[in-house]
């Protein structure tokens, strides 16, 4: 009996009662407990009263300007995003259209320089070959 009462005094039982989550039989048993337990009765009364007060509370109407303000803020963000996207697009176009072209030309130039040096080397080699033997070339450090 003591154990049973202890369970009924638990704060989750009071809350379930307040929320109307107890079954019919449980509610009946709990209500008879409330008649005997003044502490629980006081708690249940106060919680019930508060629940009702909060339920009855009427929020003031939202000021209309909230929507206008939010919408203009959103438009500002959207415009900023559009500008940022346009700037990014311009940068990408510039990079691929100009910088990459510049890099390509620079690479071409390097290739040409390399080819030129190769040709020069062959010309030197051919020139020397006419007058010297292979051993002489080796000794001259041309290999």
């Amino acid at each position, binding site marked *: 009996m003591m154990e049973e009462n202890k369970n009924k005094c638990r*704060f*989750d039982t009071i*809350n379930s009662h*307040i929320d109307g989550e107890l079954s019919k039989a449980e509610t009946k048993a709990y209500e008879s407990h409330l008649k005997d337990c003044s502490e629980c009765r006081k*708690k249940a009364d*106060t*919680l019930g*009263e*508060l*629940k009702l*007060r*909060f*339920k*009855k*509370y*009427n*929020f*003031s*109407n*939202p*000021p209309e*300007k*909230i*929507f206008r*303000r*939010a*919408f203009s*803020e*959103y438009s500002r*963000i959207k415009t900023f995003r559009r500008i940022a996207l346009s700037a990014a697009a311009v940068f990408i176009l510039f990079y691929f259209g100009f910088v990459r072209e510049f890099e390509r030309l620079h690479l071409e130039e390097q290739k040409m320089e390399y080819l030129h040096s190769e040709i020069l080397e062959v010309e030197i080699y051919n020139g020397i070959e006419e007058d010297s033997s292979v051993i002489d070339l080796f000794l001259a450090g041309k290999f």
Partner: protein
Amino acid sequence: MVWNIALGITSDEASAEDAASEVFVKLFKKYNKFSGKSSLKTWIYRVAVNTVLNYVKKEKRRKTLNLKENLTYSSSTEKYENKDTVERILSELDEKNKTFIVLREMQGLSYKEISDILGMKIGTVKTNIYRAREKMKNIYIDKGYDGRE
């Protein structure tokens, strides 16, 4: 819905206005990303609660939000009107407890809906609401708002 959450959690009309417009901006921005995994109502509540709580945290850091000082209390023997009483109790709760009370008692949401909004288990939601109610009850009695001095 958004306004009630903002006003309930900030307990201050000017701050609620700022917070609510932040919520709307987020809703406009994120609407395309709404996947439909939860209901639209749950999604709006989730965005609203998170944005308002972040707003309060940000404002507290800037120390511009001092709600308790903004309220002018009259004598505790005075019998408060319901609106007054509710607002006074709310202003004395911390944001976490306020959130649970606003969602459950003022918006009338079920434990399941609250657990979806806050991403918590139903058991955790219940425990938090019971604790918030206990705190609310203590404020109600201790401050004499129940008129039974």
